[in-house]
């Protein structure tokens, strides 16, 4: 194999600014998205993901302008998620310069939307974001379910079945976030990651819980993820993307150096 495992820094964007919340509270300002994206590109990021967490729909246009500005000077793949509900939303983001669009809640409420969007723009542009939480009790076989609204609303959907269905409906990639781990810095839910990665025929991006570089390596080696996504460890300059890649290379993982 010579296909590299990818490291994807994620920027949570609120009203055009990069922020990072720990479990969606305590949101801290981490700068201008264009500057941050440029820095990640120079450090060797393989892709960049923007999650628009702007609450007010009045301010949704800001993320479009952010993507436009980034796409003018950063020549690596860009993914945008957050508030994508219609094929028109998908096309607006792609036209702004995004390469992929992440669909989350809208897929849960209307799975046909994923089918429609992937038929229109191609599976390669459609990422389905899955927020999963463990629902099995200690000692029971593992079971994870899909949650929406930042982990607050349960749906009763089994995470593995849901991931398979989404791949079947045309998702070109799965962005998997453990809601138990997101913001905790104690590492990915590796069992969840592996269960999904082995169940679907499309690439899986592991997300949620990265606190150090070893966690990233674990996501690939034990979680079998094709890519690993992290936000805060890169935002606050705890580690650079370059250091993350060195670490992964040391662990025998093929990366783009």
């Amino acid at each position, binding site marked *: *194999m*010579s*296909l*590299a*495992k*990818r490291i994807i820094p994620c920027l949570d964007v609120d009203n055009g600014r990069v922020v990072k919340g720990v479990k969606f509270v305590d949101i801290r300002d981490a700068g201008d998205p264009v500057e941050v994206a440029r820095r990640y*590109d120079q450090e060797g990021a*393989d892709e960049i993901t923007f999650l628009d967490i702007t609450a007010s729909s009045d301010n949704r246009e800001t993320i479009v302008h952010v993507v436009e500005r980034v*796409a*003018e*000077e950063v*020549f*690596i*793949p860009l993914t945008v998620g957050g508030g994508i509900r219609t094929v028109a939303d998908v096309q607006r983001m*792609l*036209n*702004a*310069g995004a*390469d992929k669009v992440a669909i989350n809640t809208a897929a849960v409420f209307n799975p046909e939307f994923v089918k429609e969007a992937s038929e229109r*723009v*191609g*599976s*390669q*542009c459609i990422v389905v974001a899955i927020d999963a939480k463990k629902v099995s009790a200690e000692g029971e076989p593992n079971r994870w379910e899909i949650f929406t609204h930042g982990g607050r609303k349960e749906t009763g959907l089994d995470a593995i079945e849901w991931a398979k269905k989404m791949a079947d409906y045309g998702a*070109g*990639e799965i962005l998997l976030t453990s809601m138990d781990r997101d913001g905790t810095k104690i590492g990915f839910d590796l069992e969840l990651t592996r269960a999904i*990665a*082995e169940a679907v*025929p*499309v*690439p*899986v991006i592991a997300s949620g819980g990265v606190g150090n570089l070893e966690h990233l390596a674990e996501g690939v080696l034990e979680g*079998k993820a*094709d*890519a690993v996504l992290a936000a805060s460890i890169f935002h606050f300059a705890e580690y650079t993307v370059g250091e993350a890649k060195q670490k992964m290379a040391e662990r025998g993982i093929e990366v*783009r150096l």
Partner: protein
Amino acid sequence: MSLIAVVDYGMGNLRSVSKALEHVAMADQKVIVTSDPADIAAADHIVFPGQGAARDCMLELRQRRLIEPVLKAAREKPFFGICMGLQVLLAHSQENKGIECMGLYDGEVRFFGNAFAEQGINQKEAMLKIPHMGWNRVHQTQAHPLWQGIAQDSRFYFVHSYYVSPVDQGLAAGETEFGIKFVSAIARDNVFAAQFHPEKSAADGLQLLENFTRWNGSQN
């Protein structure tokens, strides 16, 4: 003023391609995104991108009466195909239950899954996820002006489920491994075409595009 025309046939967003070209173009070069055959005829360099399904690509090209103008350009001037813009240059694609393509080169566009099955590769066990997505190495199989300044086996960004299998293997300019070895770039006369996306491949991708904007279409 010299003109670089990016051919727009409604398949995918061309903003990234045009922005990357603007980034590397010389001061006297202008980048335009166009579906007008007159622009294609007038341009000095042609970039032929594309994403999506083969059937839709061929349909759009036909409806916009772009097949002949694009083929003519591919016979005459510096021409760069990207992703689907490489695939549709071949005669036939396995996509959408079989699609006739432009036929500039003899050969077929094949599905990775079929190749794995034929070669007895267990896709699930080997964890070969389709689409082939991410940064993979391109082994340069011939010296070419467009490879100038790009190290052997550099990584470029790929996202595709089908690959080209030209009858004349001498067309290959680059090879990549993904379960199987496949042709990831071709070059012949004034044509260069890549399966990967140079506009998304950071410094090496920009170098390739820069080399193209300086290329006169000859081999030296």
